[in-house]
């Protein structure tokens, strides 16, 4: 059908975003909402390749990958009516370097940022650093472009260049975005997050509905055009004509992060025993019910991603209690120290996988202690290495592997080793995509060798969508430009 202009959609989200400042948070929810309001210089295309957004085109990379010269699009205006130029970009990137965690990560490699003319920005690196463009493109702790005069921290008013702008925010009630009439879409065809962004919808309202069942019920009752993050158990309930199931396949991976710094699992042998003991298939069944929603897969990126490889994965998926017990004994486990698994019920599958894992670990001889806390407590406790041995989380498949949590030395788990540093350094310094894919195989091998985390498998995300909502492309961070409502 032909796209139609007009209409309002209600989107049920998993909660209230802590902030609308996309730089200030790495929470997915912040990215989902704010990507409609703010734009970055680059973004990701359909196949997760970096494509220009506010940048005119892909940067010119010179001096052996150390200097990035970026041409900006002309005639882009902010929601407050002012035009965007390199001064805004410069100020925004500076803010990003200090405020955003990913900006800080990038800043370590950046020597300088300059604006040689109003339409150009130049970034000079200390060393070649391949992940830079991905970092600039990412909508999470995002390098969004703000008007130079709006640099306050915390952000005072959300003014961006995006296709929609904030009309009203009632925390816990809704975030109302309306079409920004001064928006000038790109002229190239829509391509994932990139390309032309059409503003068919008049309004997008993000409604926080933290309770998954309420999201389901609302969707079934036809209240929401789109409901995010539906528990897979409820797939069968998405019937009745007012809503339909929408699966994003594959979405990401559940992960058991291990504490390599202190406690029981600081010993790599015991981490290996955990890896040996766990049966991912049973965990995935418990978490996701049917193979429609999961795949048993040890590779850090599933087939179809450029980063896919099978290095080291033969250590995955054994679920062998005896072997694990033997390994555990050899590692000198006292049989009494509890293995503390920190998890929450914010995401039901975390908890369910924890339950199953606990059974397998017990079979291998571990004393298991399940600490089920709320998500807020979890995010706090995992900062303290004294409090846990494993915590459970998940992540979408990120376009750039170096953005993955465990790859950061400082992220909870605190995985650091010579082998890791070496493998990652080589990977980051390379700019040729094909070579990088190969180098990532080495990284994955170290991952399976040192077991800083356990990748449970791949899982698909389930969402509920009204049949009337058309032109919507499933995405890990759903976006609603280019979508329209059938009347």
């Amino acid at each position: 059908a032909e796209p139609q202009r007009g209409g309002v959609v209600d989107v049920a989200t998993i909660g209230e975003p802590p902030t609308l400042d996309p730089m200030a948070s790495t929470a997915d929810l912040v990215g989902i909402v704010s990507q409609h309001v703010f734009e970055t210089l680059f973004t990701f295309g359909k196949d997760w390749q970096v494509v220009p957004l506010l940048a005119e085109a892909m940067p010119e990379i010179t001096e052996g990958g150390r200097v990035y010269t970026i041409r900006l699009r002309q005639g882009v205006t902010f929601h407050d009516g002012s035009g965007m130029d390199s001064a805004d970009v410069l100020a925004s990137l500076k803010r990003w370097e200090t405020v955003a965690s990913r900006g800080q990560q990038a800043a370590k490699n950046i020597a300088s940022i300059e604006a040689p003319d109003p339409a150009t920005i130049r970034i000079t690196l200390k060393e070649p650093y391949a992940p830079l463009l991905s970092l600039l493109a990412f909508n999470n702790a995002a390098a969004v472009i703000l008007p130079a005069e709006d640099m306050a921290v915390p952000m005072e008013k959300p003014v961006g260049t995006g296709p929609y702008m904030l009309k009203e925010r009632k925390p816990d009630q809704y975030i109302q975005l309306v079409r920004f009439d001064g928006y000038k879409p790109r002229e190239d065809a829509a391509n994932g997050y990139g390309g032309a962004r059409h503003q068919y919808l008049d309004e997008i309202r993000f409604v926080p509905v933290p309770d998954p069942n309420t999201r389901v019920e609302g969707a079934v009752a036809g209240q929401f055009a789109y409901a995010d993050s539906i528990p897979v158990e409820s797939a069968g309930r998405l019937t009745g004509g007012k809503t339909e199931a929408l699966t994003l396949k594959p979405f990401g991976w559940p992960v058991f992060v291990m504490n390599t710094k202190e406690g029981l699992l600081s010993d790599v042998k015991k981490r290996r025993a955990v890896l040996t003991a766990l049966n991912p298939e049973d965990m995935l069944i418990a978490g996701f019910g049917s193979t429609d929603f999961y795949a048993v897969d040890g590779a850090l990126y599933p087939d179809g991603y450029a980063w896919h490889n099978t290095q080291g994965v033969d250590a995955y998926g054994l679920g062998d209690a005896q072997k694990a017990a033997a390994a555990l004994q050899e590692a000198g486990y006292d049989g009494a120290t509890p293995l503390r698994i920190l998890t929450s019920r914010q995401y039901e599958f975390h908890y369910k996988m924890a339950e199953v894992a606990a059974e397998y670990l017990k079979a291998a001889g571990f004393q298991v202690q399940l600490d089920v806390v709320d998500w807020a407590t979890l995010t706090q406790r995992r900062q303290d290495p004294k409090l846990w041995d494993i915590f459970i989380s998940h992540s979408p498949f990120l376009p750039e592997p170096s953005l993955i949590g465990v790859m950061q030395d400082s992220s909870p788990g605190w995985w650091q080793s010579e082998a890791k540093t070496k493998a990652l350094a080589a990977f980051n310094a390379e700019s040729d995509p094909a070579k990088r894919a190969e180098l990532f195989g080495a990284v994955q091998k170290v991952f399976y060798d040192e077991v800083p985390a356990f990748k449970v498998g791949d899982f698909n995300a389930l969402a509920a969508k009204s049949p009337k909502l058309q032109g919507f492309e499933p995405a890990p961070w759903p976006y609603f430009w280019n979508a329209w409502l059938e009347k």
Partner: protein
Amino acid sequence: MTAVASATLPAAAAEKSGGNTMLRALLARKAVAAGLVVLLLILLLAVFGPLLSPWSPSKLSLVSRLKPPSAAHLLGTDDFGRDILTRLAVAGRLSLTVGFAVVVVSALLGVTLGLLAGFFRRLDAPLARLIDAMMAFPDILLAISLVAALGPSVVNVVAALGIVYAPRLARIVRASTLVIRELPYVEAARALGVSTPRIILRHVLRNLLSPIMVQSTFIFASAMLAEAGLSFLGVGVSPSVPTWGTMIAQGRQYLDQAPWIMFFPGLSIVLAVLALQLVGDGLRDLLDPRLARDL
């Protein structure tokens, strides 16, 4: 004269505390008898159910998940393939234990507070204020905050609910203590030179046992409901611990697919709470109709 007689007589009738007579009087009321029978059944199920059941309450069996009630699994299985009836029994142990423990905690706290406030004039004003202040917090709200503060565990839920319900007892105990303190038999004990702790224990506390018991059954009921509510909100007992509350929370997602997961624990709560209230009501009517006011 008449007033004295008629005020004391119903209480006196109840005081035939040879236990037996009271039990008989209780059983004479059909509703109370029904309540007691239900409680007894639940208790039996909780104590012996897991021992008799062929299923383990915790062992996972992912092949048989979400099975509807059948001959093998009388009440069906849950999302981990565990037998609901068996889990219901185990959960019953915990739910009942939680309820009972809350009663014990709130009784220890509330009775102490109430006795101190009621018996010692000097402590009365500040303690009465404290009790008032504690009463001002709605139970679930306060419990949520406390559990959030202490962390979700069985012990902490018990502690939180114990604190939440303590003022209810404290208020009743204080009010009755204020009255009993002035009664001639307490005065007689003082005139005899009986020590204060002994007066408090033998003369005051002993005579408060009935209202405390009545209030305790209601607290028991409220605590079970509150625990379920907290678990439902995800701020109660750790979800890996089976209680009726956590079972409901767990079953909620399968409302459509496997309604039995949520239905049976819900039914258990309703039955247990109803039974407790029936018994409490009966006790109250029997022991002191005037208590009805304080609920």
